[in-house]
C-alpha cells in the first residue's frame, strides 16, 4: 500500500486544529464503501447499475488518489467522484428504458432479510417516488445529506454551492417532502 502513504502519517485527523487525512486508501475504502454503495443504490433504480457505478467510483478514486490533498475530508472528495459518476451515468443513459422490476432492494444479497426487506422495499420505493417530485437541486442535496450522510459543508463542497444555499435547498426540500408524506402523495 506504499502508494497510499505519500506523506508522513499522523495519528489524528485533526492534527493541530487542521484537517489531515492520514489513512491509506485501503482503510478509507473499508470505511466508505458502504456509504457510497448505499448512496448509489438509493439514486439508481437498478442495483446492478448501482454496483457497477460503485466499482467505477473506487477505481477512479484509486487512479486519482495522489491528487487528493488530504487536507479536506475524504468524504467530500469521494462523494464528489460518486456524484459526478452518477450524473454522468444519468446523462449517458437518459434514452435507455429503465427496468421497473429491477428496483432497489429487489436483488437478494448477503444482508437480505426477506421478512424485513419486503416492507422497507416498498417504503424506499415510495420515498424515491416522492424524491423524484422534488427539484434536481433538492433531490441532490437531500440524497447527499441524508443518504450519503454528509455534513452541510461537505454537501456544499460536492455540489459546488455555498453552505447557506445548501441549507435553504435542504429546508425547502424537507418541507416539500414532509407535505407529501402528510398528503400521501404518489401512493
Amino acid at each position, binding site marked *: *500500500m*506504499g*502508494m*497510499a502513504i505519500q506523506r508522513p502519517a499522523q495519528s489524528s485527523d485533526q492534527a493541530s486544529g487542521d484537517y489531515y487525512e492520514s489513512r491509506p*486508501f*485501503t482503510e478509507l*475504502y*473499508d470505511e466508505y*464503501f*458502504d456509504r457510497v*454503495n*448505499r448512496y448509489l*443504490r*438509493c439514486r439508481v433504480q437498478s*442495483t446492478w447499475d448501482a*454496483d457497477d457505478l*460503485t*466499482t*467505477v467510483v*473506487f*477505481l*477512479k478514486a*484509486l*487512479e486519482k488518489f495522489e491528487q487528493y490533498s488530504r487536507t479536506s475530508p475524504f468524504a467530500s472528495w469521494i462523494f464528489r467522484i460518486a456524484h459526478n459518476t452518477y450524473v454522468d*451515468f444519468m*446523462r*449517458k*443513459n*437518459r*434514452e*435507455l428504458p429503465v427496468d421497473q422490476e429491477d428496483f*432497489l*432492494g429487489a436483488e437478494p*444479497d*448477503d*444482508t*437480505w432479510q426477506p421478512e*424485513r*426487506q419486503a416492507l*422497507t422495499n416498498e*417504503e*424506499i420505493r415510495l*420515498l424515491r417516488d416522492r424524491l423524484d417530485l422534488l427539484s434536481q437541486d433538492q433531490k441532490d442535496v*437531500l440524497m447527499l445529506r*441524508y*443518504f450519503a*450522510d454528509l*455534513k*452541510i459543508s461537505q454537501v456544499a463542497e460536492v455540489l459546488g454551492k455555498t*453552505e447557506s444555499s445548501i*441549507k*435553504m435547498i*435542504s*429546508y425547502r426540500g*424537507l*418541507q416539500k*417532502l*414532509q407535505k407529501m*408524506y*402528510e398528503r400521501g402523495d404518489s401512493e
Partner: protein
Amino acid sequence: MREEEKYPQGHTDDQTVAQLLTHLKRMRRSVPVNYQLKADLKKQLLERMKELEAKKVQPQAERPWMKRKWVWSGGTVLAAVLLIGAYLLWWGDSSVTINKQEVLTLPAEATVEQVDIDKSATQIAYIVQSSELRTIPIDSETKPVTFKLPPTKGKYVAVAWSNLGKQIAVVEQVEQTSRIWLVDLPTTYNVGSSRLLKEEEGVAFSSPSWSQHDDSLAYTRSKNGMDEIWVSSTISFQEWKLAEGSQPEWSPDGRFLSLHKDGEIAVMEMRTGLITILGQGQWASWRSEHELTYTKADGQLMEAELGDESFVNRELHLRNQSAAEFVRGNWAAKGKQLLLISRESQPVELVVSLASR
C-alpha cells in the same frame, strides 16, 4: 438535532421534521450493501495498486543499462537506417506492402463499415453478430475487449474509432429508425458504457467520422435516396447539415473533409466551403494532412496529394495482394499502417488485412 438542521427553525413543525429525519435515517440503514462486491472490489483494487507501484519502480530500474544499450545498439540502428533506405529506393514511394494477410474475416453479409482501425494502429474494432463490439489487438500490449452493445431488433452497421482512441461511434439501424451511439470501451479503470448521440426515424445513418479533437462527428444521413452529410457535436448535441454527399472523412488537422458524391471523391475545405473533385472512386481515407487515398471501382487504390491550388493523383500499388477484390483502406499510425478490407469470392467473405508503407 445538529446545528445545520436548525435552519428551518420557526418555519415548520420541529417534531414532524424530526420524524421525517428519523424516517430518512431508517431508510438509509435499510438499504442493503453488496458486501460480496466490497470484498471482490477490494481484491481488484489491491491488484491495481501493485501494478501501479510496479510501474513506478520499473523506469528507475531500467536506467543503468539503458545507456549501454544505446551505445551497442547504435550500430544496429545505423544498419537498419541503411536497410530502410535501400528498401525505399527499391520499392519506390508508390507502393504499399501487405504484411499481415487475413487478420480477420467477416461473414458475407458484413459491410466494409463494420470494421475500423484505431488511429495509433494498436487495435481493430468490429461488429460481431450485430450485438457485440469486439477489438483485436495488433500490438502485444493491448488486450482484446468485448463490449455488449445496447440490445437491438435491427443491426449495427458501422463503427468508427475516435482520434484519441477512447471512444467508438457505432451506427444502429432498426427498420425505419437509425441511431448513433458513442461507446466508451471498458478499461482497467472504467466499465464500458454507451450513450446515444442521435436518433431519427425515416433515415439511415452511415459512415461516421470523428473530427480532429473528437468533439464532433460527421456522418451520412440518407433519406428517400438523398445522401447528406451532417455533423453532430459530441459535447453539446448541436447538429447541422454540412453538404450533400456521403462517406465524410475529416483530414487529421480538420482543415478538409473528403466526401463521396455522384461516384466521385471530392474534398471540401472547411473554412471556405470550396469543393475540389479528385476523381472517380469511393471510401477516402486521409494518410496525412494533405494526402488521402481512395478506391476506384476496379479495386485500384489511388492516392491524391493536395497542393495549395491543385492536386496530384497517382496509383498506389498493393504488394502481396491476394485474389480478393480490394474495397476500402483506412490509414492509421500517421500514414504508416493501412487497414485493407477486401471482398473474397471463394468463399464469399470480407477479409481484413494489414499493410504498411
